[in-house]
């Protein structure tokens, strides 16, 4: 995972709420066995018409959306399936942070483990961001702040450990493997065995 401390980008806005992971990456693309290349299929059925041409109405296809690394989405983003492919697809496409009033648990977890930052903000900030697509925002991971509308700044909640891993680019598996002696001890001392 690449370390991430600051991010400055224009935003792209998908105002719909409850955007599920089936919309982010439809199931028929999940037969791949590597992590690479899912960006091409991100939001496939929304981004493309039936004939494969880009759907010009869709937010990511609008002028100015190119190169945006921050997605502002409606409440409860990433609900549904646990497929990490949704996070891989967003990252592969170039999205590095998602801002909403609510982000589904498993998606948030998957995001943090891959360097996609889930940012939950208050309703007022959210409204402002929804109404100003293409606005420039600045994210500071160490301070857990989101700066927008020039000088407005809000803090967002982030798990201490996840923040540390993001800042250092730490692989959590390495951390977990350091606990192996504790894990072995646990296995030896439990009163029943699964």
């Amino acid at each position, binding site marked *: 995972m690449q370390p991430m401390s600051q991010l400055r980008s224009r935003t792209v806005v998908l*105002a*719909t*709420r*409850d955007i*599920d992971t*089936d*919309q982010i990456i*439809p*199931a*028929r693309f*999940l*037969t*791949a*066995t*590597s*992590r690479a290349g899912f960006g091409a299929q991100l939001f496939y*059925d929304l981004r493309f018409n*039936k004939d494969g041409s880009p759907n010009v109405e869709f937010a990511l296809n609008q002028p100015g959306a190119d190169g945006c690394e921050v997605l502002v989405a*409606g*409440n*409860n983003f990433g*609900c*549904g*399936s*646990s*497929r*990490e*492919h949704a*996070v891989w697809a967003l990252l592969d496409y170039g999205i590095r942070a998602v801002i909403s009033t*609510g982000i*589904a*648990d*498993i998606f948030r*977890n*998957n995001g943090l*483990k*891959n360097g996609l930052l889930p940012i939950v903000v208050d309703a007022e900030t959210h409204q402002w961001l929804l109404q100003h697509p293409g606005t420039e925002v600045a994210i500071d991971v160490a301070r857990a702040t989101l700066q927008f509308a020039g000088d407005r700044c809000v803090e967002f909640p982030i*798990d*201490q*450990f996840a923040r*540390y891993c993001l800042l250092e680019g730490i692989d*959590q*598996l390495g*951390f*977990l*493997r350091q*606990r*192996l002696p*504790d*894990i072995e001890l*646990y*296995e030896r001392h*439990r009163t*029943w065995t*699964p």
Partner: protein
Amino acid sequence: MPATLFEKVWREHVVTPETRDTPAVLYIDLHLIHEVTTPQAFALLRSQGLSVRRPDLTLATMDHSTPTLPGASFKDVAIVGAAAVQQISQMRKNCADFGISLLDHDSDQRGIVHVIGPELGATQPGKTIVCGDSHTSTHGAFGALAFGIGTTEVAHVLATQCLLQRKPKTLAIEVAGRLGTGVTAKDLILAIIGQIGVNGGTGHVIEYRGEAIRALSMDARMTVCNMSIEAGARAGMIAPDDTTFDYLAGRPRAPRAETWDDAVARWRDLASDDAAQFDTTVSINASQLEPMVTFGTNPGMVVAINEPVPTADGSDASFRKALEYMRLAAGKPLTEASVDVVFVGSCTNSRLSDLQEAAAILDGRRIADGVRMLVVPGSQQIKAQAEAIGLDKIFRSAGAEWRESGCSMCLGMNGDTVPSGKLSVSTSNRNFEGRQGVGARTILASPLTAAASAIRGRVADPRPYLREH
């Protein structure tokens, strides 16, 4: 300290406790794996030269991209596409290389991962169970703490048998009363999601409690817990009781004779203490419920079968978008909508009792002209049991297709899909846009409602069909 069911299971599995700076290390007793969410996890293990720490606590099968054509064999996978063939070969190779026994296509114990765990007795009260699949919540019906994880976490569990976790909050859902005739566990969970919303459970583990829950069979409890994730919850749990123990007794992976009594004694202690506190409590009365159906594009957009589709407040663009996608008009009852496809299956409703319910309605009747109906058992064992009591004949003579087990039309990745624009009444758990195929329009319902709708050719209240019989 009085503790909830969840807290009891949680604290017993904490290897190192959480601190402000680090999450808890939580031990996992059973890791279920399938072909779709594991290849990248095994790749991570290979790249770091790691082995699978506890293959004996890992249960592997293939269900998602696996075709369900009658007598399906490996060559049928080619119908789904070269990538699916490759994915299935990769699963075989991964299991072989890492010493995991795989319930492969030729195994009579194969099936949907959340159906076979309980069926084999691997799912047990008090266990921690994970799978790279959000419907792992199903196993909570046994009083296990069971939840879905991403592929990176699958690699964590493969390598260490543990996960890094923050303790979730608890939500009690108290269900009073009894379900009426023709109203099932599926209707109950749809009503619950309708009440608390698709993010009503976010950050929480739900415990379903109360008279109505105690009265449910294990199959029905699994249906309820299965859809906990559709309310955004991490997991759903039900305290184990005699219904649970009777179900598990004698199953191949359940505790054997010598250890059975000890296990049951331990399991009995798992129920939440009377004085235990939940972070939130919600109440619902089962006796007033009707059969429920969804009208929109998430499982919280739900109405009683004879109610009209609700009218959105004008400013709600997401609601309008959902109705547009479904091509349903606000204010009209769903029972006017004509049905193209009916699917009875998925880890929500593919167990023997679900098939029996559908068969009870179909027995001696024909499905309407123009309707395609698929009945897909949750496992090969359920398929055999259903055939032993003649259910396959009832389905076939009603005009339905009878398939091999698998995820099938629950998600469009194994060759079984709903064509674009067609309306499907489905016993699965997700009515998301495109879930059953590009442009597919899905109405979620119970097996009874699905079967009645197949006969009527329109969305139907199953109760008159039960009475006529």
